[in-house]
């Protein structure tokens, strides 16, 4: 399993470099290679996670190592899924390094033995964290698309079409990817929040205890809820939506951090 994990890291790293190289040199073969390597990494990563599942009988989200690793896997998964639909090649230049960072940090973290809680409780926990991780991965992609959107929008507004203008895709595409990621991420986040509240009741006997993590979690949900509502109702798009996606993800990161500190 360690060997597979090492293979995953190498593949992600190579693919990250490949995507950067593609941005730099604009050669299609580089992109194709990066894409294939990323698929290989993803499959080996999937195998790692599958093995972990079989071994422990749980979704591997029981400690920080597993959580980060699963997060990296989800980022790549969401990216590859979007790639099939949108062919947004340059997004790999942000998504792949992000996944690489996650798995590299995960590989350096200690792996304490998982203490097995009663089955029902741990199932909730797995469900809660599992959906949140996939949701987070979707939001990470949305944030990446948002960053690329802002770069491209700046290039067009400032009328200085240069390095990025030629390489980045259209605003419309970047906006669509951000929107699609939001559509995927929001139900996950909502489900994660609900299961979290129920899990809290199970563990602490209270649904809601007003600790900073919970409050921030609620704020995150609200930010994304408002963004989604504005997009659907008023047709919010472009710059403001991109900024809000990035802000939302920043708060999301902070929330996750607070929860892991506990």
């Amino acid at each position, binding site marked *: 399993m360690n060997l597979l994990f090492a293979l995953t890291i190498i593949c992600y790293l190579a693919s990250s470099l490949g995507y950067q190289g593609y941005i730099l040199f604009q050669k299609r073969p580089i992109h194709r290679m990066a894409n294939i390597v990323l698929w290989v990494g993803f499959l080996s990563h999937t195998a790692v996670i599958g093995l972990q599942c079989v071994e422990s009988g749980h979704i591997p989200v029981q400690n920080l190592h597993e959580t980060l690793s699963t997060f990296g896997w989800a980022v790549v998964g969401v990216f590859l899924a979007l790639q099939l639909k949108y062919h947004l090649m340059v997004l790999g230049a942000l998504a792949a390094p992000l996944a690489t960072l996650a798995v590299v940090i995960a590989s350096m973290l200690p792996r304490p033995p998982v203490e097995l809680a009663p089955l029902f409780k741990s199932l909730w926990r797995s469900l809660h964290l599992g959906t949140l991780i996939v949701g987070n991965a979707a939001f990470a992609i949305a944030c990446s698309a948002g960053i690329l959107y802002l770069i491209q929008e700046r290039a067009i*507004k400032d009328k*200085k079409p240069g390095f990025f203008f030629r390489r980045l895709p259209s605003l419309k595409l970047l906006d669509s990817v951000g929107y699609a990621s939001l559509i995927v991420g929001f139900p996950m986040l909502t489900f994660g929040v609900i299961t979290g509240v129920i899990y809290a009741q199970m563990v602490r006997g209270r649904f809601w205890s007003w600790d900073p993590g919970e409050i921030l979690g609620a704020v995150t949900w609200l930010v994304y809820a408002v963004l989604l509502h504005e997009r659907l109702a008023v047709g919010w798009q472009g710059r403001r939506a991109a900024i809000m996606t990035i802000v939302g993800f920043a708060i999301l990161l902070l929330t996750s951090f607070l929860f892991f500190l506990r």
Partner: protein
Amino acid sequence: MVEKRHIVVVGLNHKTAPVEVRERLAFSSEDTPHVLESVCQCPSVNEILLFSTCNRVEFLLATQDVAKAVEAVKDFMAEFKKTPLPSFEESLYVYSGDQAIRHMFRVASSLDSMVVGEPQILGQVKDCYGQACDHRTCGVVLNRLMHRAFSVAKRVRTETGIGDHAVSISYAAVELGRKIFGELEEKAVLLIGAGEMAELAVEHLVNNRARPIFVANRTFERGLELAEGFRGTAIRFEEVRDYLKEVDIVISSTGASDYILVRDDFKGLMRARKNRPLFFIDIAVPRDIDPEINRINNVYVYDIDDLNNAIQENIDERQQEALRGERLVDGAVIQFRRWFQGLDVVPTIVDLRAKVEEIRQRELKKTFAALNSVSEEDRAAIDRLTAALVNKILHDPTIFLKQSGYKERKPLYVDITRRLFNLDEGNGGKSEG
């Protein structure tokens, strides 16, 4: 006595003056006849042509006195445009002689264009020349120069790859549209005004399956005509603001002297559009769309300078082909110079013959006055003798001046001839007295 003429170009273009200056000094085609006639009345100006496009304002002159003519044109521009001369004098360039000839050839061949190799310029140059012909402000020098320019332009276009890659304003507009909208399919386009470049841009968009097309023109009939060409709908000029809710791309190219859309027109508009992006392509000079509008979220305004900057990189790729064009131009300049200098030889020979003939007549008169007894027959014989002498003596110098074997030194020989025979004495005497 025929005086030597010089070819001079006075003007400014996109390289020397920003759009703010160009739009202030641009002459409309209605102004042109008046401008041509006014400047042509200056005693130092023999022939004149005016080029005023959105990228350049240039006067092409044939004159005997370069300094005076240039002064006259500068003063005229300042006075006509009610703009103090110092505010734009720095942007002006003055070319004379070979430089002026080369400049005109380069302009017509689109080597001096903002988008090197763009095909519109030749048509514009021909139109400007046509106007000057209509008002008879072109003479033998400029006529010849312009016809040469047209044939050079044609050669450059057919013999180099300068126009091969579709790099132009309209292409840049389509490219930008793609970066904003992704696909141009089913994107509604509104054309305000008319003009070759604007219509070309619309055509490009239609080729990329943008539709529907709306056309707004101050004269509704003209709008109808244009709309028919694009299979679009003509709307009234007053309706433009209402249609902003529906269209995605607006191409503006009117002759209006002020902005036709300002930021205030956009209050509530983006909400009504559900924030869908809106892309303005402002080809007009003076500009139609207030540049402030670019600050509005999801609205993008590109004026003609912006578009040109956008394609600068592609232009660089054309430079190689342009170099071959320059070589053709160089050859044509040399050819033209030969003809132009030959023009100087002819008046010199005429002057020389006139002077010697005058001497002959004067001496004959003196001689006949002294010889009373000579018969009518003998007088005719003496007359023939002197005429033959003059012809024989002048024959070799004339041949020498006319022959074309020594292009570079021709001005020198012409100069020596004039001094040797003191052909300019009348002139000198006048100016001294």
